[in-house]
């Protein structure tokens, strides 16, 4: 298989490597941050940021479809569902 791609959208392979390594480190740090945040309400916000980081990671892996899915679900729909559940639980504790 030939790896010579000359479309207007390609970047040099070294640059892509550096980008991927950076975003992988950020994703690892983000996962650690999500787990180490103890209060669930704060954790939902950190999860939203983690979702955006994952979306950028998928973009550097040349997967725009998965990026769209992760953005809509991980940064919007999932935090909404989580916050609604937390609101229900907190209301009963009052």
């Amino acid at each position, binding site marked *: 298989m030939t790896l*010579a791609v000359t479309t207007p959208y390609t970047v040099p392979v070294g640059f892509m490597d550096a980008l991927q390594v950076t975003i992988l480190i950020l994703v690892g740090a983000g996962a650690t941050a999500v787990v180490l945040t103890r209060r669930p309400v704060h954790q939902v916000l950190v999860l939203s940021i983690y979702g955006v980081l994952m979306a950028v990671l998928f973009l550097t892996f040349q997967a725009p479809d998965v990026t769209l899915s992760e953005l809509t679900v991980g940064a919007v729909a999932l935090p909404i569902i989580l916050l609604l559940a937390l609101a229900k639980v907190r209301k009963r504790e009052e």
Partner: protein
Amino acid sequence: MAYFPFVVVAWILCAGLYGIVTSRHLVHQIICLIVAQSSTYVLLLGVGYVTGAVAPYYFDVPAHTQAVDPVVQALALTDVVVEAAVTALLLSFAIQAHKRFGTLDPQELASLKG
């Protein structure tokens, strides 16, 4: 660089598992489960990546340009959306447990009877 993404996958999975094991709140546990699940997406996409290739969409690049594997992307794509619905189901269980037992601490819930 050849194995770095997979090491990050292991790190994310172990972080999620650590959160599940040492959690004191059911919703915190569920969010750590989400993190552990997200490691599998990175693994899937990492397996299918081809260095120097473009995304598998031939709308504006000439046909037969080298592209990354589309099958793992299809898997990861449906996976992400379905996981959200299953998480909602888990949360509804947590809500009902809170209604029934009054507490959301998994270590207290384990020792409740009836």
